C-alpha cells in the first residue's frame, strides 16, 4: 500500500501546551507592496489575533495592513518533499524563460 503523504502543518496548534491557537501574521509594508510573513502570535479569536499582531509586529508603523491566518489552515511542504518538489526544476532548462527572445518593444519598456 502506498504511503499516505504526510502533510506538516508548520506549527502544531494542538493542545499539547496550554497556549491559545497560533496565528500567522502577514504585514503589508507601505507603498502598496504585497503582504509578507512577519511571524506568529497566540490568540483566542481572530480579532484578538489582529490586535496582538499589531502590538507585536506593527506598532512602529511597519505596516499599512495586517492579515492573520490560523496556522492550522496552512499546509506546508515537509523537508522530505525537498527532492521531489524542487530539484527537478533545475535540470529542465526549458522551464526557465531565458530561451525566449524578448521583443524589442518589451525590452525598451
Amino acid at each position, binding site marked *: 500500500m502506498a504511503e499516505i503523504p504526510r502533510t506538516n502543518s508548520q506549527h502544531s496548534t494542538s493542545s499539547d501546551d496550554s*497556549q491559545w491557537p497560533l496565528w500567522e501574521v502577514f504585514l503589508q509594508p507601505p507603498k502598496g507592496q504585497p503582504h509578507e510573513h512577519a511571524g506568529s*502570535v497566540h490568540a483566542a479569536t481572530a*480579532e*484578538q489575533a489582529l490586535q*496582538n499582531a499589531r502590538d507585536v509586529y506593527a506598532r512602529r508603523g511597519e505596516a499599512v495592513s495586517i492579515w492573520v491566518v490560523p496556522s492550522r489552515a496552512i499546509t506546508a511542504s515537509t523537508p522530505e518533499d525537498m527532492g521531489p518538489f524542487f530539484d527537478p526544476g533545475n535540470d529542465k532548462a526549458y522551464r526557465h524563460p531565458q530561451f525566449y527572445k524578448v521583443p524589442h518593444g518589451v525590452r525598451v519598456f
Partner: protein
Amino acid sequence: MSTPALVPYLLRLGDDRLVLGHRLSEWCGHGPILEEDIAITNIALDLIGEAALLLKLAGEEEGQGRDEDALAYFRDAVDYRNALMVELPKGDFGFTIVRQFLFSAYSVLQMEALQRSKLEALGGIAAKALKESRYHLRHSAQWVITLGDGTEESHDRAQRAVDELWRYTGELFAADEVDREMAAIGMGVDPSTLAEPWQAQVGEVVLRAGLTVPTHEYMQQGGRVGRHTEHLGHMLAEMQIVARSHPGAKW
C-alpha cells in the same frame, strides 16, 4: 488668556494617565500570555507618554520652572489630581481590563472634545491621545466581552471587577468650578456632558459581555481635590524612589 483653572485642569488630565500608566506597567513580565503582556505594556507606554506631554504643558503654564519630571516625581499624593479609579491596585487581569475599558471609553469622549480646545497645545495632545485611546478602547472592550462571555470563572471575575469599580465612575463625570471655567472659555470640556454617551457605550459592551451594572447610587470621589485612597501613597513611593534618592540623575 490664562485662567487659574488651567493648571489644575491639566494636572487632572495628566495625573489620570500617569497613575493608570504606572498601574498597567506593573503587569510588565506578569501578563497572562506574552502577547497580552506586550499589549498592556504598550498601553502603559501610551498613557505615560500622554502624561508627559500634559504635565510638561502644565509646568509651562504654571511658570515656576517645574518640568514633567518634577511634577511626576516630586509631588506627594495630596498634590496629585487623578481620579480615584486609576490609583486602585491592579488586581487580577479581569480588574485591570474592566478598569481600562471604563477609562478608555471616557478618554475617547474626553479627547474627542479636547482636540477642539482653544488652547492649541492641548488640542494637539488630544488629537494624538485620541488615536491611542481608540485603540485602548477597542482592545479592552474586546477583552471585556471575551471574559464576560467566557468561562464561569472569567465571568465571575469580570463581574466582580464591574461591581468594585462602578462606585468610582461617578467621579469621572463630576464637574466642579475648574471644569466649568475651562469649558466656558472653550479650552476644556465639562465632564458631566460626557456621562450620557459614556453610559450608552459602556452599557452596550457590558450587555454583550453578559455582565450587569450595579444599581446602587453611591459614588466615591475626592481624587480631583487631592483626597486619595491609601493606595496612591504606596504606589508613588515605589514610582518616585529612584528619582528622589538620586535627584538630577541622568542615564
